[in-house]
């Protein structure tokens, strides 16, 4: 990291510290980091995500003071202890449970922003990869956290998801047995999930530190995708972006608070208010909303192993993205064709999420009824077919559209620098 700070230790203590552990200097370095002055609101989600992580860790530590991992006690410790008896337990759990959803809303926007503005392209590939690792860890943490209240959806979600791994030949069965610590999801599973659910957030925090480190080497990307050329292109992170991110966090908190205080159950599932019962399966098992697109991809493939591979492949696409994009221009602001394909991609992800929550054989357009065209295993007017079309586009976007368009598309003129955009009016209009 090159020095950007003007920090000079003023007192004797500061000088003493600075030659031994320059932690104040590091803080100054981060605060004064030269940041492109043209970042828009989509860039505030990094700050929002840091806030989310801190919130989840603090409320989680507190909840762990009251939670009891065990088949007989987990549900009671949550629904009776925390929700009814512990002082402000309902509030702290409300923040933590809804906070997971808020975290994912923010991370998805953050990821879409990175994709739109080409923030993963050289020299930021590692920054993007570390982000993908954080996303994976978040999914693991959220999944195990959802198991802890030990309601019906906790239990059956855990069972269904761990059974997915059983699809792999030879290693599948031993891995699931190892995960469960038994013949099925049971007390040992719950206990280890609690342990890991407590551990992983600190791993996330560590990878976030690397993520920020990797950000501070090349510096931020920006809406033009043009690298910083001079000091005129930047402002110090503090106070300019601390205040802007603070405002964004305030607005984000309003949405967050609506869920906590007025719709605490909206993002959960009613079945999780029933204690886990290994003998009775809920009528319709759905994962949490943030997993629904992947769930839809899984169900789109009729073969179990292929479905699991497709689901993991969908995440693997993100890791490969920096090398799939062949374009010389980072920002889609100057790539009108890519922009259209990208927007379709966002819609496709939402459609996949929608499909993930539906019964596969239900009609997409009920008024149409059965079309009578039965392809492979299902009628054409069914969610399973909508999922298939959307899954095809999802993979095509990464494997075909992104590489081909990068080579063939003629981008609009790109400005020389952030401070002097050519056709400034034009760029502003496209914003």
């Amino acid at each position, binding site marked *: 990291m090159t020095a950007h700070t003007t920090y000079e230790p003023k007192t004797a203590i500061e000088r003493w510290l600075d030659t031994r552990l320059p932690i104040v200097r590091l803080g100054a370095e981060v605060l004064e980091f030269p940041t492109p*002055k*043209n*970042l828009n*609101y*989509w860039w505030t989600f990094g700050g929002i995500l840091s806030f989310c992580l801190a919130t989840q860790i603090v409320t989680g530590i507190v909840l762990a003071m009251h939670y009891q991992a065990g088949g007989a006690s987990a549900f009671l410790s949550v*629904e*009776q202890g925390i929700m*009814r008896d512990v002082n402000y337990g*309902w*509030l702290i759990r409300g923040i933590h449970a809804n906070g997971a*959803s808020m975290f994912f*809303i923010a991370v*998805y*926007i953050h990821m879409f922003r990175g994709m739109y503005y080409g923030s993963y392209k050289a020299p930021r590939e590692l920054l993007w990869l570390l982000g993908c690792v954080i996303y994976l860890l978040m999914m693991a943490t959220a999944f195990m956290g959802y198991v802890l209240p030990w309601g019906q959806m906790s239990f059956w979600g855990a069972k269904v998801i761990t059974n997915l791994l059983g699809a792999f030949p030879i290693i599948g069965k031993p891995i699931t047995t190892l995960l469960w610590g038994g013949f099925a999801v049971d007390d040992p599973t719950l206990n280890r999930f609690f342990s890991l659910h407590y551990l992983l957030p600190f791993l996330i925090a560590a990878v976030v530190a690397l993520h920020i480190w990797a950000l501070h080497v090349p510096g931020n990307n920006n809406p033009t995708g043009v690298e910083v050329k001079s000091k005129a292109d930047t402002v110090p992170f503090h*106070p*300019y972006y601390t*205040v*802007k991110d*603070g*405002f*964004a966090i*305030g*607005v*984000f*908190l*309003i*949405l967050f*608070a*609506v*869920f*906590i*205080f*007025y*719709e*605490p*159950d*909206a*993002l959960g*599932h*009613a*079945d999780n*208010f*029933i*204690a886990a019962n290994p003998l009775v399966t809920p*009528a*319709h098992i*759905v994962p949490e*909303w*943030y997993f*629904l697109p992947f769930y839809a991809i899984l169900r789109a493939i009729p073969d179990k192993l292929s479905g699991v591979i497709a689901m993991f492949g969908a995440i693997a696409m993100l890791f490969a993205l920096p090398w799939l994009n062949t374009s010389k221009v980072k920002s889609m602001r100057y790539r009108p064709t890519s922009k259209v394909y990208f927007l379709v991609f966002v819609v496709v992800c*939402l459609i996949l*999420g*929608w499909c*993930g*929550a*539906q*019964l596969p054989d239900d009609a997409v357009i009920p008024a149409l009824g059965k079309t009578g065209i039965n392809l492979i295993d299902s009628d054409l007017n069914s969610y399973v077919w909508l999922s298939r079309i959307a899954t095809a586009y999802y993979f095509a976007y990464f494997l075909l559209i992104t590489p081909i368009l990068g080579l063939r598309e003629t981008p609009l003129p790109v400005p020389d620098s952030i*401070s002097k955009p050519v056709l400034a009016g034009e760029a*502003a209009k496209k*914003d």
Partner: protein
Amino acid sequence: MLRKLTVLAAAVGLAFVATSALAASTKEEPVAPSAPWSFDGPFGTYDQAQLQRGYKVYREVCSSCHSMNLLAFRNLGDKGGPFWDPKYKSSVENGYVKAIAKDYQIADIDRDTGDAIKRPGTPADHFVAPFANEAAARASNGGALPPDMSLLARAREGGPDYIYSIVTGYHPAPAGLTVPAGKFYNPYMQGDLSSFWKGDPNKVPVGGFIAMPPPLADGKVSFDDKSPSDLKAEARDVSAFLMWAADPKMEERKQTGLAVMIFLLVFSGILYASYRTLWRNIDHH
């Protein structure tokens, strides 16, 4: 400003899509019309008289089959509860709660002899389940398990409306529908009746079978406050009581929420002003 609104709209939109996706995840069942609840909306509160009536319905009718394990007697006297009385410092002191608790016999161990005994309940004790365990409950109810009622109103899509609909919605089975012995047809119950239906396969009746016989009827419970005790009134009151039982912190939650929302709106406004002031001389487009 437009772009800022877009960001906000996108966030709200995403949440909305997720929410409605989940809401749509269960098959649509008809929901009977019910009176608007006193606890609807961001300022709604429980109606204490209604909770007391609802408790009476639970005590006299439901509790013979349905447990309410998560609730202690003291909860009845908690702030916002059916028997809350501000003159008592703590719900444990509440005379009404004490009297209710005393009516129950609690299994305990004699401290001196070690024998299993029954003693009168105290406010700190929990409601006593009508059956010793799940197997006993099923054996006494034709194989069906009467669900625990502590969280019932949150454990079913539709909450109190659903409970109201089930209780008031018993309906003679349409001709062509074979109702198994010991079961009742209820259009608001979830299920798939196609294998019991002899008529047009495209016109399978909605609803399902329920093992519970119609629990309430006109005049089944007489209310101390002389309010009407027809089937609908009883159903409404017990549904409200069960909503309170499932979500006793609702009033506290909404009140806290109001203060938090006001703070956040002001806070965001101040930060926006701070942000604009700070950036006013920076050309950042």
